[in-house]
């Protein structure tokens, strides 16, 4: 099993994400219709369709550039809050990427960490505000813990995805403090956060991409 995430896998991850968001467009929009403005699935599908269009032109460049292009593309095509948020995430991730064609698990953790810092800086949300931060924060923590415990990339990603999924579950009872859902006040409790869900999907696709090659 490869202990590195290759550039090809990274590209495949982003492409597959586009497929997944196209398939889950209705579901994510439905989640957003419960506590938002019913556009998250549409936004993510549109943004990642654009990313998939762009990818071939940069697939040969370095990982940092692929991530930055993804960020730029999302930024200008998503349309909702998740545009600047995911846009910033991938931009920062790209800036933190090492100058290599592969990512070790620790590199992956480092670029996610940079991305998450960007998310937080952009959205000023805290854990518990019922946003995508609630998926990313535990996911990153689990990823790092797993790496610290010398687990393989695959194991670390499994832990990471499980934690993200748990984060989505844990977002259900929360009352939204940020984003559209915050206008609903207490009525936002009882539904998972759409952005946390899409974040979990992204990680899940990454895991599956790595698993497929394992």
């Amino acid at each position: 099993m490869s202990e590195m995430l290759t550039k090809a896998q990274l590209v495949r991850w982003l492409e597959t994400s586009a497929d997944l968001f196209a398939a889950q467009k209705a579901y994510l929009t439905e989640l957003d219709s419960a506590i938002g403005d019913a556009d998250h699935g549409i936004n993510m599908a549109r943004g990642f369709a654009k990313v998939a269009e762009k990818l071939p032109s940069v697939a040969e460049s370095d990982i940092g550039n692929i991530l930055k292009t993804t960020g730029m593309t999302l930024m200008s095509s998503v349309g909702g809050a998740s545009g600047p948020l995911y846009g910033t995430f991938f931009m920062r991730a790209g800036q933190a990427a090492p100058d290599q064609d592969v990512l070790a698990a620790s590199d992956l953790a480092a670029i996610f960490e940079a991305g998450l810092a960007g998310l937080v800086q952009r959205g000023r949300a805290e854990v518990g505000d019922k946003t995508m931060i609630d998926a990313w924060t535990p996911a990153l923590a689990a990823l790092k813990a797993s790496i610290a415990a010398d687990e393989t990339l695959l194991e670390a990603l499994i832990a990471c995805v499980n934690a993200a999924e748990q984060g989505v579950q844990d977002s259900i009872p929360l009352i939204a403090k940020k984003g559209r859902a915050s206008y609903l006040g207490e009525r936002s409790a009882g539904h998972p956060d759409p952005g946390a869900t899409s974040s979990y999907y992204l990680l899940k696709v990454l895991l599956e991409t790595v698993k497929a090659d394992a």
Partner: protein
Amino acid sequence: MIGFVLVSHSAKIAEGARELAEQMTQGRVAIAAAGGIDDPAHPIGTDPMKIVAAIEAVYSDDGVIVLMDLGSALMSAETALEFIEPERAERVHLCSAPLVEGIVAAAVQATAGGTVDQAMAEAQSALEAKRAHLNEAAMLPPAQDEPITSDATHTLRVIIPNALGLHARPAAKLVALTGQYQANLTLRVGDRTVNARSINQIATLGARQGDELIAAAVGPDAVDLLAAVQRLADDNFGDPLDLPAAPSADGQIERHDGVPDHVIVGIGASPGIAIGVVQRLEDERLAIPERNVADSLAEAARFDAAVATAVADLRQLETTTRQRIGGERAGDQAGIFEAHRLILEDPELIARVTEAITATSQNAESIWWAQVQALADRYRALPDPYLSGRAADVIDVGKRVLRHLLPGQTRGLRFDQPCILVAADLSPSDTAQLDSAQVLGIITVAGGATGHTAILARALGIPAVVGAGPAVQRIEAGQQIALDGGSGWIWTTLSDDERQTLAAQRADWLEAQQQLRQRAHEPAITRDGLRIEVAANIGQPDDARQGAAAGAEGVGLFRTELLFMGRESAPTEDEQYQAYCEAASHLSGGPLIVRILDVGADKPIDYLPVAAEANPFLGYRGVRNWLDAPAIARAQLRAICRASAEHNLKIMFPMVSTIAELRDVRERLRAIQAELSAEEIAHNPDLEVGVMIEVPAAVLMADQLAPLVDFFSIGTNDLAQYIMAADRGNPAVNHLADYCQPAVLRAIRLVTKAADDAGIWVGMCGEMAGDPLAVPLLVGMGITELSMNAPAIPAVKAVIRTLDRSACQALVDQALALESPEAVRTLLESRASEQISG
């Protein structure tokens, strides 16, 4: 000149606002609209790149002001700044003013040559004109230091007339009275002033006879309120005029003919003599978790809900105590619960807790407990013994709320030393958890001989006096007392003679108990030669050792929930395997029946979240959710199967209500067994499988379930509740959820019949199995395994040895024909008194 950018999710809004402002500025100011996104199908949204372009279009070194609508508009604008040259970005200002009003005000300011700061300030205050016009200022909350109302303050001075001063009852009367008026009333004694709506504050004033009370009222009906206070004072604050000492609700010892002064007489509920130091329920050591909560508002709401439930409990206890006990005692006993309720209905106390929760984001239970203790300390510090005794009530009430805040966690009362436990009332679950090594005797204020506490105390072999009235609340913690659970006498002090006599009686009683315990290690065989297996219910592996020490021949119910609770992830297969093996190792080859995880919304586990349910009792619990948690199910099944290789394990499934569920779990088990075989891991392929019969549906389908399993185990606690549709935790109906109800007996009969027809054995693992009175019925119905809390084992074995099966069968026929649980008990009691002496 300053330039402007308008950001909106809607291109039309951005464009419209631009047009509106341009009407005023007539082209003298550069305004660019950056609205919507380039998706004709879904044009609503914001696009940072559009904003970048708009800023660039209107940029000058005089600066740019960006106005935005909501949500992503802000984030997109901030993002846009990152794509602009830093020197330029410094001159771009994001402005929080409202879009339409803001752009008009700021753009006009710009045409007048204003700076960016001036234009921003104009935009920020753009709502003022609108507010002024709509007269909204009037709706704003009043400034902080303003007096609440300018009404005059009316005052009244009275000298406290009654002998006991403002103790709990007068305080309650004052609170109730104030509640009928709109005016606010404060009471002052000496240099302390308190809110008359707060019972705790009034009572802790410590106002005594002869003190001057200054009542000050403010509000529309202040005069009437003060007149009512005067009337109450004239009425001696509701106390009898000739009261020489404490009224009994505050602890006077009642007089009975021929009973010495230092003896209180209650109802003898569980025979035996106990001599020991008094501990109150409040002395129980509690570990209250302290943690931060993410959402303090939700936490405050959770606290409010717990208080509301506790208040409802107390109301129920009050009415049922009045109804069910009747007579003079009822008033006094019910009064306790009323006083407790008033403590909880104190708005000051509740507000303090709620505020502290929101201010500190700490969990409700830690804040509540700290406040309760502070309040109890204030009572304790009062010089008046009747009032300082109220501290016990405060703690009692505090615990009641805690039980609702920490459902399932307040299990097992623990004390530092062996004691006689005194409590206002003991919940059945509290009682069932008592350890007879720690609790030598039980005394309760309320309750009767047929109450749950009494029944359980008997099973546990703990002497008990119930319904002793409020006088016992006055017995101080740490005092040496004695009780006789037969006669119901409580000696609040002991002369040397009394001590000697009682000690001798206790020795005799202990001796009898000891004989029971010794014989508990022998099998329990009826007189006609039928062996009944007597087993223990356990929650953790080590309980099996204690069970075996008490005479258990096996474990009839291993509740595995404890293995799963209080941790962040499920126990691994290996951890569980160890636990099951350890439990089995204490049983010298005796059977260990492991019940798979049974959790629901009432006792959620972090990693197996069950959404909050209106009715967890009828909800997603037992096999219902276990079946949907494949990873947890798999690990538990594998652990059980692996442990079955070396130990005598059986597996049992809870909450089964359909044949399909049983087929499903059996299939799961079969698959796991196949998996283990494939992996060449040892396990017992003939592992016995049982279902727990606790849902009425399972009773009615017992004939179809029976051929699919190896055994049934009847869980009478839930079964009685489900059959009677009555919650044991609800004092208004808990007397219905009684396993002596003929309906419950008939259900058991149906189950044993079906099992008999299919040739499988039936056990019982509910409370009923440990009730010596009920055992003859169970044996008569054909139950061959009884599993109970370990302390009940000796008494149950002793009863079994006196039984004869055909007599028991006749007893069953008689009992099934009766129409009430009382009639069933009377029948069983008369049989018991014929059979056993001593």
